[in-house]
């Protein structure tokens, strides 16, 4: 999985391309910790190019959500693809992790 981030005006966008599984999940956690430590606790994870996620990846997203909230921010996800949506739905985590059509819309209303 390729991970990168960009700090924008009111939030930081992390782009995750590839498979979010037990190999890449710790790397996502590290990147979110780095972004939060740099002062950006409002984070969008752009999942447009994430074709696959397993429960390890889901656990990482939940851990990252907690980290962002503990720092006074939030973590939202954007451009969710069908397999990721399926995992979110079957685990009822679609109610916990708010999904937006695009990264730009994730913090668009606040």
């Amino acid at each position, binding site marked *: 999985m390729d991970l990168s981030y960009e700090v924008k005006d009111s939030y930081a966008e992390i782009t995750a391309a590839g498979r979010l599984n037990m190999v890449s999940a710790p790397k996502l956690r590290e990147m979110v910790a780095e972004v939060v430590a740099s002062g950006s606790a409002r984070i969008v994870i752009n999942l447009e190019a994430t074709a696959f996620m*397993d*429960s*390890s990846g889901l656990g990482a997203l939940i851990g990252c959500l907690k980290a962002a909230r503990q720092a006074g921010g939030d973590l939202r996800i954007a451009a969710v693809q069908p*397999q990721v949506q*399926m995992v979110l739905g079957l*685990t009822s985590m679609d109610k916990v992790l708010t999904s937006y059509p695009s990264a730009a819309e994730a913090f668009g209303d606040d």
Partner: protein
Amino acid sequence: MTDILARRTLRQTALPEAIEAVHTELDKLWDDASFVPDLDRMTFATAVIEAASNVVQHAVPESTKPVELGVDISATSVRLEARVSAFDAVCPDPIDTDPAMPDGEAESGRGLALIRALVTTVTFKRQDGTNTWILSKSPLRD
């Protein structure tokens, strides 16, 4: 007995890198079994990766020999089956094969519940120092 139309196998040391190899074998299975509908590919592949990740994360070696992960995936015209094995591993504690899905902010513990939700049957077998989870999905949907 319906004929197996496509089959792939893998056996290697149970390290995280092995998960990428399982993804590759799943992709090759779909190349050979193009009749399998997309939704079935998605659910089955997710279940197989969960089961293989479970072996890599939790299997305990029975001796000084490292645990090996085995994956045997096959397709007939009406059924998908996976045998996901931990070779040279100790027998796990009694397994709850139908666990509840953790809720709220738990960061782990969803793997087996997710597998149950994705496939038709899940069975566990212990034989000759090998733990095998057998997942099946049928019938295939258009």
